[in-house]
Each structure stands twice: as structure tokens, then as C-alpha cells.
């Protein structure tokens, strides 16, 4: 499994029945009392209460990524990360694609192909839900492609910019 930027080797070593499960995480044993709830699981590990709701991740339907909602933080987990690894389009060190996070209208494009951009530099302004919102570069790099023009309406997920 992959979570928080690293891989975990998880194995189920015993499920003796009832609600007790024995896991190993990176070789270390973990005993879990697991119950299903209306939204996910109620877990007990060494007396500690872990309430975890589960929803499908962004890529969940096809790739087995789920989001685990702990009471105050949500953590995406790729359940079968080993198998999927080669397929992901996210390479922190390679090409990065900026897509429209919601339907809206492009107000301004702040970069051109070939521009050098810094981490978190604004690259596109999109208007949605009555507000203008800046989209920023998720990494430093060079603009490889600008796929939209100002004034264009865009759907959620539409490719806007490619940085490499």
C-alpha cells in the first residue's frame, strides 16, 4: 500500500473469526478489532479507538485508491500500490498536468510555453462559483504546453497546463 508518500508492506496473518484481525505492517504485528459502521470502520488497536470512514479516491474506481477519513485528517491510500505503480500519471519529478478542478471559465492565462515557473507560482485564473481562483504550479519547471485560452469555458478535469 502507498500512503503519505511511502510504501507499506501489509499482510493479513490471521483472521481467526469474529472481529479480530492480525496484520503485519512492514513486518511488525498489529492486532485489530474491526467493526463495520454505517460509514466505514470502528477499529481498536491496543485500546486506541480509530474511527475511519472510507470513500473512493480520485482514481478509486479503476485503481483501488481510497480515502481514509480519520476524525481530523483524510489520507489517500493506494490499496494495491505495487501492482499499479507503473500506471500512475503523477510523477513528482517528471511531467505534471494541471487540470481544471471544477467547471468554470478561464479568466487569464499567466504563462506561455517555455516559461520557467517556480513552485506555487500562479499560472491560470479560473472563475467559478462567483469567484476568481488562481491555480498555482504544483512544482517548479518549464511550461511545456498551454491547452486553453482566456474566456474559454472548461469542464472539471479539462487539461489546462503541462509543466515539465
Amino acid at each position: 500500500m502507498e500512503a503519505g508518500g511511502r510504501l507499506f508492506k501489509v499482510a493479513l496473518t490471521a483472521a481467526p473469526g469474529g472481529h479480530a484481525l492480525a496484520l503485519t505492517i512492514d513486518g511488525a504485528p498489529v492486532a485489530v478489532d474491526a467493526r463495520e459502521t454505517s460509514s466505514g470502520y470502528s477499529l481498536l488497536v491496543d485500546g486506541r479507538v480509530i474511527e475511519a470512514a472510507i470513500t473512493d479516491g480520485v482514481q478509486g474506481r479503476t485503481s483501488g485508491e481510497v480515502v481514509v477519513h480519520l476524525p481530523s485528517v483524510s489520507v489517500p491510500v493506494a490499496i494495491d500500490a505495487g501492482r499499479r505503480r507503473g500506471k500512475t500519471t503523477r510523477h513528482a519529478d517528471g511531467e505534471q498536468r494541471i487540470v481544471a478542478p471544477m467547471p468554470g471559465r478561464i479568466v487569464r492565462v499567466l504563462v506561455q510555453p517555455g516559461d520557467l515557473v517556480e513552485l506555487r507560482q500562479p499560472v491560470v485564473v479560473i472563475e467559478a462559483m462567483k469567484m476568481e481562483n488562481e491555480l498555482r504550479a504544483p512544482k517548479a519547471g518549464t511550461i511545456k504546453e498551454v491547452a486553453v485560452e482566456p474566456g474559454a469555458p472548461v469542464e472539471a478535469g479539462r487539461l489546462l497546463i503541462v509543466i515539465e
Partner: protein
Amino acid sequence: MKVLIANRGEIAVRVARACRELGLTSVAVYSDCDRESLHVRAADEAYPIGAPPARESYLNIEKLLDVARRSGATLVHPGYGFLAENAAFADACASAGLTFVGPSAESIRLMGSKTAARDAAIAAGVPVVPGTDAPFEAGASDAHILAEGDRIGFPLLVKAVAGGGGKGMRSVASRGELLAAVRTAGSEAASAFGDASVFLERRLINPRHIEIQLMGDHHGTVVPFVERECSIQRRHQKVVEESPSTRVSAKTRTAMAECAASVARSVGYANAGTIEFLLDDDEKFYFLEMNTRLQVEHPVTEMVTGIDLVHWQLRVALGEKLTIDPERALTPRGHAIECRVIAEDPDQGFLPSPGRVLGLQVPQGPGVRDDGGVAEGFEIPVFYDSLIAKLVVWGESREVAIQRLGRALSEYQVRGVRTTLPFFRWLLAQPEFASADFHTAWLDEVLASRNGEPFAAVSDADVRDAVIAAAVHAHRLASQAGGGGAASNPSYGTRPGGWRHAARLDGLR
């Protein structure tokens, strides 16, 4: 008697609840994307009013009046936003024989003009921020503009007469920036409000935004309430509101309340309204503007005074005399804090995060009030503001209110869309919040200095817990796929809850 609620989301739910409490029938309206909105489901009746864009539905006066006729509603509550401060709508209601639950069209018109409102305040003897006495003429000369700027002094603000929500507003640090700022503010105001007029106002250094709630009746009574502290703003939008303010002494409170009431009385104001002030470090206050409607943040006032403002809006509209004890309205009991839970991703510069709410867990128990507008399963539309709910907490003291807010936020969970909840958990941990040491620019300054760090810090322990949960989930799916009765784990799958959950996952794969 029926009340048409010409609004949507949480405020429409809030009004429907008040109607039910008062024995009034609530009539909701909905645009095509809002049929499943909670405000429809919470009402007694509901009628469609058109396409999702607000101008085709919630801003369409003819359609609203048509629903009033069709349903037999005799009162119209506008909520906030949309047509709440639209004098033409108030007029149209009156012409149609409907009782508008709000001030008169004249009051809305007068106070909707920033300069006219300013004049009214001056006439009532209320201090205003030094500024130009009138907006600039269309062809005002550069020399005149610069002379006015010099008279007021820098830094100053250029403001649109018809402005609101930070639009048509520019901050000017020095003389050299003034002419350009006047021009851009004017053109922004022209396109946003259809009125290009702007004026100048001195910019106070690190002021607080303090506002006084009012309620007036049709018999000449105006009651002012204890102040609300609304200085925590992001880009001129309120984010957290509380009551009372730690910076307002009893003496200042009385003075502000008297000023606010005298402005309202001078214009014959009826129903709910709010006068906004700026407060400087010396506890001197200046009239800013009047909002001629119920505010988003009205619950904090209700929680510290015990007075239901929406009940009174309806009662006053029906002609009742205000019988609120003025002493009680001005005396805060304990402390209340409101957080606007919005479908925005704080980690992406508060980018709107529309989408379907897959799961919703709302805090309960002592001292917690949730004014929600969204039910589990609802698809938050992209067409309107994305307020999911207002979480309001009350405590004996500000300290207890903050403790309670922390507890309530730990219980609150919205799944499926990003929300401002992680931001509020972060805010709670800021020393300036704990000590109430902030001003209207504080939050923007702090956010700028954070440089995009995530608001919810995910610890190694969190990641490990998530991996454990995901492992349990994977095992659950595998047992399910293996026929629902894997011998290794006979107890799974025997519960309806289990079946349902597994079935859902199957359905989504």
C-alpha cells in the same frame, strides 16, 4: 399563513425552521439543480423557478412572485444575498400585495448607497471614517482627485458607491497610485454593479470590523444588540464571527449601540439590519455601512442574547410590536463563535470544491448549534456560494467556547468535497486567535506568510492508522468477493450494515 422563502441553502432552512416554530407554512423555491437541496426537503411546499444561473431563478422577481401567487403565500422572506437588498424586489412584493420580511424599499435604497448611508450617519451625529463627501463626478479632473486624496491623507481606500464584498475597492498606499486605482475601481464597479461612481476613504491601520445588530418594528421602536466581532476575514470575506468582542468595553458597546440605533431611527428603519463599524486601537469607532438584511452571522447574536432574530423578523413583519428587553439585547451572556463550513479547499488557496457530499457527520451535544444547508448525498452546485453549514458554539467564556469549538470540529466530518474544516482546526491553534489579537488584515497576512503549507498536518501515526483501516477494508472487500462467507472470517457479512457497505463498493467499482 404561508411564507415564501426567496432563497436557498442554509438560510432557507433556517427560515423554514422558524416558520414551523411559529405555525407558519413555509414555501421553498428551487432552481433546476436544487431540487434535492435540504432547503426544499425542509419546507412544507416547494416550486421550481428555472435554470441554475441565479438570474434565471433566485434573482428572477417575476418567477418568485408567480410562486407566491400560486402557493397563496402572503409573506416573502428574502434571506441574505440574492434579492435581500434589492429595493425593486421589495417594491414588487408590495405592489403584489405581499409582505416583505425586511425593511422598506426606501430604507434599502437609501442604505444601499454607501455615500447616502454615510450622509445619514453624519446627519445622525455618528462618526464616519474621514473621506470624500460625495462620489467623484463622471469627468472629475486628475487635479481634483489628487487634491481630495491629499486632504484625506494616505494610505486610503478607493470604494465603489454601489460596492460590496471587496469588489470595486482598491487600497492606495501613496499619492502616486491614486489615479490608476480610481480608474480601475471605477471600471470594476461599472461592470459589477452597473455604477462606476467611487469615493475615497481614509484607510485605518489594522482596524477591527465590529458590527451592531438592530431590530426595528413598525411602531417606531429600534433595539440595538451586543456587537459582533468579524475581523477575521479572507479577502474581505468574513470567515469567523464571534460575540462579544474582547476589544469592546461596556462603555464603547453602549456608545456604538446608541449610534447604530440613531442611524436606524433617523431613516425609520424596520426589521433586522446591521451597522458595520471599524474600531481602531484607541477604541474609537467609525460608521462603515449598513446591511439592510439578516446577516449570515446572526446566530452568534442569538446565542449570547437568547433572542431569536428570525422569529422577530417574521413577527415584526406581521405588525407586532417589539417587546425585546433592550438591556438584555445589549448584555452578552457567555461567548459564541461561528465558523463558516464552506466547500472550498484551503490547501488550494480556498478554491471552490463543488461535488457530491458522500458523507456528513455533524457535531452534537452541549453548546453546539449547526445551521446546515446540505444533506448527505447532495451535489453542491457550482452556481452559488458553497456554504455547507454554519457551526456555532457557545461557552460560558471565550475560553470555554474555544474548547468546545475544538471538540465540535473533532466530531465534524464532510466526505466527498473539500471543506474549510481543516483551516478552522488550524486557526484554533493560532496564538493570535486564542488571545483575540487580530484585525481585518491579520488573516490575509498570516495566510500569505504560510506559503501554502497544508492546513491538516498528517502525522506518521495518522498515516499508519489509515493504512490499518485500508488493510481492513481490503480484507473486507476480498472476503466479500470470495462469496460473502469466507471461512476465515465468518462474522463479516452477517449484518445489514455490512451488506450495504459492501454492496455500495461493488456498485461503484
